[in-house]
């Protein structure tokens, strides 16, 4: 009985420290974005694009939607690599998913059109 009481308390204490599931799946975003930020070359761009594509298709965490900024930055990198049409499509997806991005993304789209 004494054991049961002790283990119940320890169990409660341990669960209060355990981290919860994340809102989003990020794959290896931190490393890919660091390498792109540092090197900004073809290889790091391709690695970052692959990470974005993985993040977009593999969302199975709490929200089950693509995290903020991902569609837009993916679109931006695509545009820089000559894929303007697909890049624009990704920018539109950012606005659809996150309406608060409209002010900024509309500005980017207008800059592209000039």
């Amino acid at each position, binding site marked *: 009985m004494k054991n049961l009481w002790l283990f119940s308390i*320890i169990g409660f204490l341990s669960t209060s420290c355990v981290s919860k599931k994340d809102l989003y799946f990020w794959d290896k975003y931190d490393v890919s*974005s660091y390498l792109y930020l540092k090197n900004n070359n073809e290889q790091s761009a391709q690695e970052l694009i692959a990470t974005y594509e993985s993040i977009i298709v593999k969302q199975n965490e709490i929200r089950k939607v693509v995290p903020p900024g991902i569609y837009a930055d993916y679109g931006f990198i695509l545009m820089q690599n000559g894929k303007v049409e697909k890049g624009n499509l990704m920018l539109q997806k950012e606005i659809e998913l996150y309406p608060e991005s409209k002010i900024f993304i509309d500005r980017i789209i207008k800059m592209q059109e000039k």
Partner: protein
Amino acid sequence: MKYRVFFLLSSLFLFAGCESTSNIKKSVAYKGIYEEKPISILLMPPINKSTNVEAKEYFHSTLLVPLANKGYYVVPPFLSMEILKRESAYDAELFLNDPIANFGEVFGADVAVFTIIHSWNKTYGNVKVEVEYIIKSTKSNSILFERKGTINFNTTVSGTAGAYGALFDMLLTAASTIATKYVDVARICNTYTFKDLPTGKYGVFNPLEPDELSGKKVFSANLNSQTK
């Protein structure tokens, strides 16, 4: 007697991984956040006062994840960085003490996050980082969140494998393994500090959160790559 000793030791061990808190409720410590209810966050390029020239990139690339995971909309980091550079606003230090309403108008951001890396010192198996985070409102220009940490990071505890898988770890070159290790340091500093931030619009709502005790404004912590 032996049960008491066992209980006390177990409790100490379990609490060792938890963050030490202040005696101030979040509703008081982060009053401005509960009042202004910011939705979107602009990441300012970190201000690097340390001697490690790459520390800025380590921190910049690892800010999106913890803030988005707290439920905030984060203005796309690479796109916003491009615009900040074009507008000659890449040096965040210039805006730390000035009104930042312009960032609200251009980026649609409710707040901006300033990260100041005061020091980054390596010794064998350890990195000691002093880093400060300031979240400033673009509407009221008030500081809504401010924490400064002295963090000892034990780099001998392997965590990259846990995060990305053993195979990925093995495939990395020696150089990028070192880079990955330091990206890990910044990622965990950011995650640990922003864990205290009230939950944003897209996060899991917790009605009891305002009554929880906030983390200390100035803190020190011993972390490793397995710290959640």
